[in-house]
């Protein structure tokens, strides 16, 4: 199992986010990546937490920052990749994998297949920001800024075109040891292709290991303690 980190990129800088709404500045992304690389973080998912009002100009500005990154850690990137025009800008970035969210929810097959042709199927990740409302799991669609029931998402389409699915617990984002594992109940994806994020702590890492999850992405906490990644890796050995 891989142990990585989620890094949020907003207006060309890193931010920390709590419960999908509170935001605090974290500084330059190169500095954050350098720290994570030093801790031998297995992978980093850089996500732009954008909504329906994201503009192409903003996207371009963030891309310029990503373009200049120098890192020897595997990087996934996504957030606001909505058209083939956006996709073109990703072609020469120092990233290995692409993250799509709204494109999967809205079944934008042309965009996903375009990405597959450029980067290969192994590079395509689907991000589903999810939360529980009563007995149902709801998915946040950022391009529309609304929630829809998971039952109305075509999960077969996701299974076919995504190499991995990142399940992001938005209610517990930024918290410790509080990932809601009931979200995974009846989730129609093989655990080997599931990546979990949002509120991940050491106890969650042990649960992920037991459940055969592909990867866990720790959020803000990873950057608060020097060498904390070693503690998380140790947690998998204890389980």
């Amino acid at each position, binding site marked *: *199992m*891989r142990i990585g980190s989620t890094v949020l990129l907003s207006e060309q800088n890193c931010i920390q986010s709590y419960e999908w709404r509170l935001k605090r500045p974290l500084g330059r992304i190169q500095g954050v990546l350098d720290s994570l*690389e030093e801790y*031998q973080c*297995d*992978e980093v998912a850089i996500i732009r937490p954008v909504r329906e009002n994201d503009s192409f100009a903003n996207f371009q500005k963030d891309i310029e920052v990503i*373009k200049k990154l*120098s*890192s*020897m*850690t*595997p*990087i996934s990137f996504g957030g606001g990749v909505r058209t083939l025009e956006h996709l073109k800008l990703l*072609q*020469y*970035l*120092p*990233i*290995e*994998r692409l993250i799509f969210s709204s494109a999967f929810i809205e079944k934008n097959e042309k965009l996903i297949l375009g990405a*597959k*042709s*450029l*980067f*290969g*199927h*192994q*590079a395509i990740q689907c991000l589903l920001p999810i939360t529980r409302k009563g007995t149902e799991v709801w998915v946040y669609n950022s391009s529309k800024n609304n929630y829809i029931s998971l039952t109305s998402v075509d999960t077969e389409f996701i299974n076919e075109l995504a*190499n*991995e699915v990142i399940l992001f617990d938005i209610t517990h984002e930024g918290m410790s040891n509080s990932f809601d594992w009931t979200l995974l109940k009846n989730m129609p994806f*093989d655990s080997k*292709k599931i990546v979990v994020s949002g509120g991940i702590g050491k106890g969650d890492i042990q649960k992920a290991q037991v459940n055969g999850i*592909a*990867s866990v992405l720790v959020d803000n906490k990873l950057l608060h303690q020097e060498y904390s990644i070693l503690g998380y890796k140790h947690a998998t050995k204890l389980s």
Partner: protein
Amino acid sequence: MKVNILDIGSGNISSIKNWVEKANVPTKIIKNAQHIESDLLILPGVGSAGSYMNRLKEGNYDVAIREHLANGGRLLGICLGFQIMTQHSEEDGGVNCLGLIDGYVERIGADISHNGWESLQFRSNEMNEQSFHNQHKLTKKRVLNGRVFYNHEYGVVNNEHDSFSTSVSSDFSQYDGLFVKNKIIGIQFHPEKSQITGLDLISMIL
């Protein structure tokens, strides 16, 4: 030492450039087959075999790569860049590849993807038995012992004799993680994203 990186419009060139230049060796990105002029030519690989081979042929890169080898140059393929050195890949419904390595590429399993870190160990003299050996002695390191990052769904089965190779992992032992024969080296993992081990490896290769 001249290191060329082939750019056929298929991603991640900057990471490869960053990886080689961390060993204090300058690189040149090549966008025209006629401009290849190097001791070591690197074929990065992102995408799928079908479109990659089409681009190679359209730009006459396939001919230029063979000429580079015939002139005594060394060739390094990474991930898909390694896979297309074989004779055939079953990706995209079947693709004829460059045929520089006696071997083929197959899906590592239905709906199986190999994304993650695996250990890599070898002694430099095992690799240096091939004519590829590190000519510039950038490191005195004799043993590489670290971990490397994989992200692939297809693997190389090589039928070569007298080559040096290490397997991807115990779970994927039939597929090569690192392959060296004569002037050719193929790497299935991503050395440019393998942190400290990637840096050790490039010093041992160059």
